[in-house]
């Protein structure tokens, strides 16, 4: 069998920082073939992709719609453009992986709920903080029952782009909701802090969970297992402080170092969301190749 047949063709809309980082990660994938990088102007990102031998376009979403064999599309534009792209992609029979705050489809955190969502045509990647903390909340919830989950995400100032800065409420509100909907907590709260220290700090996330059954041994084992799951697609994800129990309160701290593909290593916050998006696409690609889901 031709080796290429084992790959599913994908496209990226939005050749900015996120799109470029996705590109490097897809190029390493065994199951994904980057067939197209498309933007709306002749940008640095478009040139970079072309120089790497990837087909490019400045026709935006239209370029993707024309190509029947592209099955999965990463949207790394913005909330407003994605609202326009989503129905077009759906009509064209493509699966959309949405890295914008538009949240047309359900939230996905690959190590927690991807299995349940495999029939969806549009999946939203939540936020960087959500990708880093929902797995921990869920790991604790599945063994101890989460009554309340609260996270504090600290990101290097240099790694918070204009999109995050102009709408920081979106981060706190979306992340809090994902702690509930995906993580399983009855109530969620999210806080984000930007730290300008030089050299830039790694992304750190503190996860507090108030649990129903404070059993340290099972909580610790569950968290350690979940951390390994996340590490399988985000190698720089680390348990900085293993779960500490005080009464029914569990405190855990995780740190994310970026892979340094296109973005610097301190941009673990961006790395975790692009890594998670590629993981989602890979899992879906395998299902398509096995005929488990239609494409």
């Amino acid at each position, binding site marked *: 069998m031709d080796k290429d047949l084992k790959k599913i063709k994908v496209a990226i809309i939005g050749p900015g920082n996120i799109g470029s980082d996705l590109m490097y990660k897809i190029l390493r994938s065994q199951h994904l073939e980057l067939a197209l990088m498309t933007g709306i102007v002749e940008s640095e990102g478009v040139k970079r992709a072309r120089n790497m031998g990837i087909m490019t376009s400045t026709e935006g979403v239209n370029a993707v719609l024309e190509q029947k064999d592209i099955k999965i599309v990463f949207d790394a534009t913005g909330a407003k453009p994605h609202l326009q792209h989503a129905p077009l992609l759906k009509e064209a029979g493509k699966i959309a992986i949405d890295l914008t705050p538009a949240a047309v489809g359900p939230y996905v955190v690959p190590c927690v709920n991807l299995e349940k969502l495999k029939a969806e045509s549009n999946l939203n990647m939540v936020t960087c903080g959500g990708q880093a903390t929902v797995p921990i909340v869920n790991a604790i919830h599945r063994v101890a029952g989460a009554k309340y989950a609260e996270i504090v995400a*600290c990101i290097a100032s240099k790694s918070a782009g204009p999109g995050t*800065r102009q709408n920081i409420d979106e981060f706190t509100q979306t992340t809090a909701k994902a702690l509930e909907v995906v993580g399983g907590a009855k109530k969620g709260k999210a*806080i984000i802090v*930007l730290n300008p220290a030089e050299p830039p700090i790694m992304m750190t996330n503190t996860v507090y969970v108030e649990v129903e059954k404070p059993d340290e041994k099972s909580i610790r084992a569950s968290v350690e297992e979940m951390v390994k799951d996340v590490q399988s697609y985000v190698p720089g994800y680390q348990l900085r402080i293993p779960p500490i129990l005080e009464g029914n309160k569990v405190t855990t701290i995780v740190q994310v170092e970026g892979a340094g593909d296109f973005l610097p290593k301190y941009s673990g916050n961006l790395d975790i969301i692009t890594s998670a998006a590629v993981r989602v696409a890979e899992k879906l690609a395998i299902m398509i190749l096995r005929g488990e889901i239609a494409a």
Partner: protein
Amino acid sequence: MIDNKLIHLVDTTLRDGSHAVSHQFTCEQVASIAGGLDAAGVEYIEVSHGDGLAGSSINYGFSAVKEEELLKAASGAIKKGKLTVLLLPGIGTIDDLKMAAGCGAKVVRVATHVTEADIAEQHIVIAKKLGMMTVGFLMMAHMVPPEKVAEQAKLFESYGADYINIADSAGAMLPEDVKARVGAVVDAVKVPVGFHAHNNLTLASANSLTAIEMGATFIDCTLRGLGAGAGNTQTEALVGVLNKAGFRTDIDFYKIMDVAEGIVEPIMKRPQLVRNAPLMLGYAGVYSSFLLHTYRAAEKFNLDPRDILVELGRRRMVGGQEDMIVDVAYQLAKKKGVS
């Protein structure tokens, strides 16, 4: 000195002071303190969780009473003054701001770390649309040079802030640091400038006076100095100091002293002394509200609170990173255990 210039006092006993009572204020306490401040003639009365609207959390401490109820209690007690709230983008949201406006808040101070003013644009623009007076509040101003503070103040001004508040959140500034930063901002913006001090190095009143000398016209203060770390500039003392220095505050000196002694002092959990740990906050340049969290971590991990604070300062932690106190304590304890 015959100046008679009006200095606007912003009393934040019911916001910064909330740290010192671990956010346990009741509606009765809020109503009586806010009413007392109002009757004494205080213009701006700030009421919020210590970390701003929606600060009630595991990380910063849960409030005993819902913020909405506290704001309503204050609003009901204030006749002439303006109910003021604090909002830290990243913690509180526009929904929280709308809730506060609905409770009668007339002024919002939107606070960011001194280098991150651009995360507050959305909140300032919407507050203006809600008809509120809005203030751009730059925290931890000691951490960057005066030019940077001025650059960020100009950003706030461009979003529509009605005045810019420079905060020495760590109580780390010497009078010359205040001079340089407040002076740079006064030169850079057309709107008025304010100053927020902490008394960790026992310089709160002196620094406030220095800020006024450099052109600041809004000064933050709290009754009995009740606040994070070693507390803030003491409202009733500041009124006396400004009277003697020839400034106008339009506050009744006797009445404000009576509110401090009659209402605030009895509810204080401890005297607002410059003990060793708060002194170390100022010395190491650490966010003042880390204090009580640091005491707890020191006890849990059997450490000297000063060692935790020095390490937090070395790591250049900013306001809101209370979670890193446990991180530092854990790492220090681990190191101690190994050696």
